[in-house]
């Protein structure tokens, strides 16, 4: 619902706010949120996961984010982007593919072949360089073809390495999860140890507390002042300990 802008006005110092700013009233936002909530409930989704409500009244259309491009492509700062972030294939870039086609995985989806192919490429890279030095020594004008060969090999190597990246990313994620699992288990074990130790101390305290309790009753009058002094000191000590550990 674009509003046509009035022509012939003086150009203001600061640009006007976007023409749809009036759509963002508190009532409209509330209505939109209610619609979103209803849509989320309808589809059994969490509200936070709903990016866009497919059908909204026309006066709320500016509150709704635009739909994904239908053909999966859009332009940003003059650059063509696509929804699928794919690695451009060698053929599409106009480079000859060396070795076997495909992603280098065998029937099980393993990548043993890929390492072998990379090694082959690395070896032929060195061999081609040796040939290049010879050609350059004998007839430098013919060196260009060899340089192009080397370039093709290098591009192939880099492409193969990049093809491997998604696999590596998953592999790293697995490693990370394993690490966090290990650290969690270690933490649990440490806590358990500390708890056990504290429990032992408690049982130890329980066994010596009772005789002291009885002693208190049988204390003689003559030792009372001495005991008071001791108690005073003890309470001071406890205060200090409390202060330090609070």
């Amino acid at each position, binding site marked *: 619902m674009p509003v046509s802008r009035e022509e012939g006005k003086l150009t203001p110092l600061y640009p006007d706010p976007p023409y749809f700013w009036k759509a963002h009233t508190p009532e409209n936002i509330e209505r939109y949120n209610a619609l979103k909530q209803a849509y989320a409930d309808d589809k059994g989704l969490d509200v936070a996961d709903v990016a866009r409500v497919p059908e909204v009244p026309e006066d709320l259309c500016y509150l709704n984010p635009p739909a994904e491009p239908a053909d999966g492509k859009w332009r940003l700062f003059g650059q063509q982007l696509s929804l699928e972030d794919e690695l451009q294939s060698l053929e599409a870039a106009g480079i000859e593919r060396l070795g076997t086609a495909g992603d280098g995985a065998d029937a099980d989806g393993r990548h043993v072949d890929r390492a072998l192919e990379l090694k082959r490429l690395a070896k032929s890279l060195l061999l081609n360089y040796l040939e290049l030095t010879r050609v350059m020594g004998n007839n430098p004008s013919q060196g260009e073809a060899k340089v192009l060969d080397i370039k093709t090999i290098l591009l192939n190597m880099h492409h193969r390495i990049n093809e491997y990246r998604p696999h*590596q990313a*998953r592999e790293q994620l697995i490693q990370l999860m394993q690490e966090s699992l290990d650290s969690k288990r270690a933490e649990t074990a440490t806590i358990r140890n500390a*708890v056990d130790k504290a429990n032992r101390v408690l049982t130890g305290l329980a066994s010596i507390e009772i005789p002291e309790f009885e002693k208190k009753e049988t204390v003689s009058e003559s030792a009372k002042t001495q005991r008071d002094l001791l108690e005073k000191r003890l309470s001071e000590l406890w205060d200090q300990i409390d202060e330090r550990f609070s």
Partner: protein
Amino acid sequence: MTDRLTQLQEAVDQLTNQFIACFYFLERHHDLEPFGPSDKIPDLKPEQQKEVDSLPPEVFQAGMLELARDLILKEQQIELLISSLPGLENNEQDQLKMMRDLEEELKVAEAQRLEAIKEKEEVLAKLDQVLRMIRRY
């Protein structure tokens, strides 16, 4: 430290750089040879820029040997990196399965951890109580 793939790519780039460096060395320090009987090496005036900075033959040979050895070393490094790429034996399904298993284990471990923390707090409270009792008396 970067991941192995990046290391590998960097090693390949370094190898390429070494190629160029080797050419530079050969081009700059080779000896001058007459091709035919009529050729002769011109005597340059001292102020003229020398096209070739010839090294004595044994130094030149030693330099070539060193550069060649470096090239082979880099090549071996690349092959080592290729061999040590992680998870060559796993395919995508295996990886996904491993991730799911790990997720489950993580949940269990987290529950155990919380339980242990709870236990710790209980013991702490008990200990506190005991300390207070001692103090009172």
